[in-house]
């Protein structure tokens, strides 16, 4: 197969970028999209040119590293897969394919197709955990968790932190990511004690990082490689509302001196 690739090249965060066109031939339909790019890069290196920088690691759809916007769609034309799981047989021979990085204010470009997604880590640091110490945990079966709840928590926990939802959103909102993280822990009894603080802190961090607000267009769900459902955004909104009400709790006098203030 043959293709014409239009690839975004940018040397650094503060440099101007632009599209560069590369023809590729000798592409096998059994190649993955990233293997096709590997082939191009091998050619560029031998020619003494700098290869196209792009992010990848597991190449099986779970680490969340790969992050290409292909013909305008994060992770490309196939639903429910990451870029690394996309195969060339999915494309028409002779097609022109446009490849760009995730674009969002909160994800500055490092080079070519590589962006800085640390903002997602910082949201997690703000509250995406259960604060238990190592050691002394009770037996795992002391806590009975219904299959339904466990499965729903698992649906949310499937998020691989790739950021495609942000890249797909006109407002570059990280709502689906935050919703997945908040819902995973809110579904489980272990996560209940900190749910109020958690959702407030994570939503605040999301705003601080410069992600936009949710416009209810659901482009996020459409590109999410793990089918994380927008239902979780509803759950996030409910958690947030609940926290806002709880957050105004007037501390009773008996709280002092150990009471936590919200």
């Amino acid at each position, binding site marked *: 197969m043959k293709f014409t690739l239009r690839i975004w090249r940018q040397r*650094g965060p503060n440099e101007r970028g632009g599209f560069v066109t590369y023809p590729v031939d000798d592409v*096998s*339909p*059994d*190649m993955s999209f990233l*293997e*096709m790019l*590997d082939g191009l*890069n*091998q050619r*560029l*290196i*031998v020619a*003494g040119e*700098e*290869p196209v*920088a792009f*992010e*990848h*690691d*597991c*190449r*099986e759809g*779970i*680490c*969340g*590293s790969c992050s290409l916007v292909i013909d305008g769609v994060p992770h490309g034309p196939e639903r429910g897969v990451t870029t690394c*799981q996309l195969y060339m047989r999915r494309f028409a021979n002779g097609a022109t394919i446009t490849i760009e990085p995730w674009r969002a204010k909160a994800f500055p470009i*490092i*080079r070519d197709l590589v962006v*800085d997604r*640390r903002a*997602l*880590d910082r949201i*997690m*640091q703000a509250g*995406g*955990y259960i*604060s238990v*110490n*190592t*050691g002394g*945990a*009770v*037996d*795992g*079966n002391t806590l*009975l*968790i*219904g*299959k339904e709840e*466990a499965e729903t*928590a*698992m649906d949310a*926990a*499937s998020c*691989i932190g790739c950021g495609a939802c942000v890249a797909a959103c006109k407002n570059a909102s990280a709502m689906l990511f935050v919703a997945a993280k908040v819902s*995973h822990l809110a579904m*489980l009894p272990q*996560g209940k004690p900190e749910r109020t603080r958690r959702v407030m802190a994570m939503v605040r961090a999301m705003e601080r990082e410069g992600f936009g607000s949710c416009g209810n267009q659901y482009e996020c769900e459409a590109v999410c490689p793990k089918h994380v459902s927008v239902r979780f955004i509803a759950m996030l909104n409910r958690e947030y509302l609940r926290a806002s009400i709880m957050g105004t709790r007037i501390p009773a006098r008996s709280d002092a001196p150990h009471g936590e203030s919200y």
Partner: protein
Amino acid sequence: MIALDPQVPPGPLEMKWDRRRFSGQLVSPANKRRIKIIVVGTGLAGASAASTLGQLGYQVECFCFHDSPRRAHSIAAQGGINAAKNYQDDGDSVARLFYDTIKGGDFRSREANVYRLAQISTQIIDQCVALGVPFAREYGGQLANRSFGGVQVSRTFYCRGQTGQQLLLGAYSALCWQIERGQVTMRPRTEMLDVIVADGHARGIVIRDLVTGRLSAHTAHAVVLATGGYSNVYYLSTNASGCNVTATYRAWKQGAAFANPSFTQIHPTAIPPAGAHQAKLTLMSESLRNDGRLWVPVSPSDRRSPNEIPPSERDYFLERRYPRFGNLVPRDVASRAVKSICDEGRGVGPGGQGVYLDFSDVIRQQGIDVVRERYGNLFEMYQRITGENAYEVPMRIYPAPHYTMGGLWVDYNLMSTIPGLFVIGEANFADHGANRLGASSLMQGLADGYFILPYTIGHYLAMVNRPPIAEDHSAARAALERVEARLRKLVQAKGRQRTAASFHRALGKILWDHCGMSRCAAGLRGALEVIPVLREEFWRDVVVPGSGEAFNQELEYAGRVADFLEFAELMCHDALHREESCGAHFREEYQTEEGEPQRDDERFAYVAAWEYRDGDTPALHKEPLNFEFVQPTTRSYQ
């Protein structure tokens, strides 16, 4: 000269870990605050260690080359994690998990370590539940289990096909908490390129900032390596593309013994390579062998499509050779059988690299829906990659390098032969002997990180309390210079132009042929001759565009390939010296007439720990394995 003192506490097996914990010195809370620990790696081992050390009050500085700690290769584990909970009441116990693991490792691991691992296994599950890991549950709300890797009890805990991701997210969230509390400073996109050793102790590391290319020295009271395994030395493997040997290999060059480097596990069920473009091999879960049957056409010249071949003209070779275990023999046994069939020219698919894994019988007996429910996502993945529908035609599978039992030698306290340098997770050699059982690596990573290292490192720190050396100490400057010189050499313009990947591929082929699933003296000697030649060509011809002072993925990669090119020789030396077949190490000269491996406990019941010698062949040191509590038996699956 390296001295190997395993530091195993005396007394009965069940009491050893308790005794060690009781006899270990403690660091006072006030002192902990003044102690700094470097942790390299944020997989299950590194993230659980860094978060626990932070929670204990140490100052932790944590490094990983990924853009986020959550992306470590542990994320890709699918199958599950073992624990001797005996929730199914099917006769499991700590003793049984211990015995299965030590037998699975073909009696080439240290009893005391393996027993401790089995003991701690139950706590791991509790800890992970507390952190919010959404393990599969039964309708009644209890934790679910499955049986895995051919053992007779159901002791594997799992989260759909994403156990690794969920366990890692648990450890990562614990790490996030400690980062938020200011106990851990996280430095993603940094690559460790050397260890700083001063006065015989590990005192820091040299890193390269992968965004700016800047090199810097970081010093501390102790250093922990949790940098994973090196299966990528074979070029094609099931590992993530970034997995490498750099951190442990460079520590080796500074004096840490490397143990059993040739013990590498080849997993039987990966999707076969489709062509020269192949960048990695995708693992298909081992559970498929519970229901699928492996076969090839009896006649090598049979080119009919598989469904047209009648049962009488199929060779169900595992069932034929191993009537008792059939398709469920351990990984090494299955992989070797597949390879020998393909070497005989009886393989199927492109290049004859593959055998059928057929589900038609189970589909006929139990219905397609049952199979879809069990393996639906795997069949979907298979179809996406190969374009074939495995409900209609048999899958094709082929073995792939998957896990490395070898690693830096550590004592019972997980400390290497460089005092102050600790090694945890897949990066060390402990626990799995010559072969690892399924679902036991996640267990080991978390046991090391959550429960063992945080205790044992305390003892070292209490005994050896010296403030960190200055970042411009002569040892730090020397390490920086070593790293700088190597990087400079890599980016220098070259005569002929060849990419690092082409060398990596050539090296992988040498190892796959001569130091892979089966080895022989002549092949290994040949490999030891050609590897240095390839390495010379690499340094002469490799081309790395761009500069060292910027984001440069090709430079990172070329550096890792350069280390593989040296390390491969060490693997071959190790494989050559071990004149026996044990676990995943199969020496063609040492087999029975039926082709079964012959272990030699008289001569080889030891851990081979290799010491680096500048400009000379590595020196062998032996840690004898004394089996006080179990009797080594012959592993037989016939």
